[in-house]
């Protein structure tokens, strides 16, 4: 039996029907950070707690990665099968602006300010054939 494996531990809630990204929030200055860090990037305090980040937010900016990145890029693709992919920052209200792959790769369909939602999908397969799961954002329905 194949098993879905998250690409990194502690990045998002998994397994879950409605996964969320996991961030850290500083208890002294209320700043949130993704991924979780042991200290606050703004004030350096180590008094931080883990929280689930909002699953929806607005697209802050975006681009399309037009060529296959060199290592450390690690997908199932070959230079022949590579498909350009969208990348963007999504403003998660009350939390932080998160960088992510986007499911959309057509410039005409991406607009700053559009509503986005989180998905967790198979990104690649490991050597044993298990799906490796990662997060992305897609246009909200």
């Amino acid at each position, binding site marked *: 039996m194949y098993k879905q494996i998250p*690409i*990194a531990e502690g*990045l998002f809630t998994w397994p879950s029907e409605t996964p969320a990204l996991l*961030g850290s929030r500083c208890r002294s200055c209320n*700043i*949130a*950070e*993704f*991924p979780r860090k042991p200290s606050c*990037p*703004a004030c350096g305090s180590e008094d931080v707690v883990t929280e689930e980040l909002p699953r929806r937010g607005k697209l*802050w*900016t*975006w*681009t*399309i*990665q*037009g*060529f296959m*990145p*060199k*290592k*450390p*890029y*690690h*997908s199932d693709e070959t230079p022949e099968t590579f498909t350009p*992919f969208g*990348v*963007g*920052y999504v*403003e998660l209200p009350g*939390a*932080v*602006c*998160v*960088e992510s*792959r986007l499911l959309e790769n057509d*410039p005409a369909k991406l607009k*700053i300010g559009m509503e986005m939602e989180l998905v967790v999908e198979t*990104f690649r397969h490991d050597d044993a054939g298990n799906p490796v799961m*990662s997060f992305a954002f897609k246009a909200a329905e």
Partner: protein
Amino acid sequence: MDVAIVGIGIHPFGRTPGLSGLQQGAYAARLALKDAGVEWKDMQFGFGGSASAGSADAMVNELGLTGLPFINVANGCATGGSALISAFNAIKSGEYDIGMVTGFDKHDRGAFNADPKQMGIDEWYGEVGLMMTTQFFAMKIQRYMDTYGISNNTLAKVAQKAFSNGAKNPNAWRREEIPLEVISQSPMISHPLTKFMFCAPGEGGVALILCRADIARRYTDKPIYLKSAAVRSRRYGSFEVFAPSQALQQVDGPTVDASKAAFEAAGLGPQDIDVLQLQDTESGAEVMHMAENGFCEHGEQEALIQAGETGIDGKLPINTDGGCLANGEPIGATGLRQVYETCVQLRGEAGERQVPSAPKVGYTHVYGAPGISAVTILQR
């Protein structure tokens, strides 16, 4: 104690298969010594660095083992600027009279492939394809264009000017003009930036001889005074490269901070600058850096660039040697290339690419990962 630049040397940028990065640095060093009419044994100190071409202090093996203190500097894209500031402070302190600063590099072809771990980022970030400086620059200009109304045509014009200036610079890598349509229609690397709007990793070397201002005329009748030099790193809330997340509220980036510090230390303002070199890793960077360094308001770039004001004959001549777009990016050498070009312009020795108004004050700016900036102000 004021500081003067009395000797300058450069190894042509581009690709030189027969020479290591270090040898290109030594070549520039010999030219700088000759330019100042001094010998290597006269140097009381050395500061230098490269990102991919070995330790700068190995250069003593090429130039002679004189026992001088030589300090390696490694600070990403601000390596050259940081070496220069170290030399500036060494002379200002009164400890030394004269010394050398050098920066050189030699990178492999293709985009830089950064290692997430070195930047304190987890492996997944690189694995999913986010460890790309090109994406950062594209996303920064994408939002900037949306906010301030900068057009795609203006991005192409920045690159067109770079290649046009490069064609007039015997030390540039790209020495052919490229038509606007070819730039616009070249393959899209990272929307909205096309292939010809990005600089490529390259090779090259630069060396400068610095001394106490009061003895500068022993070495040259055209000393260039280093009025100020500032390096700043990012504060929380500035939008920077390799950031898995960023603050909801933005603050000014390190370029704004370094620029303000350099102007304040020099007692000058943007209106006093006659010729400028701004980091142009890609077309959008030059556009945004014009405003971040205080040379115009956000959004004014569209009209300035469309009117040709950033050309050699314009009122705001930017990247007169072709910038990174025409010279490529040997990380350790870029910041010093800008200073070299500014000295050439202020000396009035830039030939075909000379800014015509007999420029008196020049400005240089570099920006690099993970959010550092270095600025210098030079005056003749």
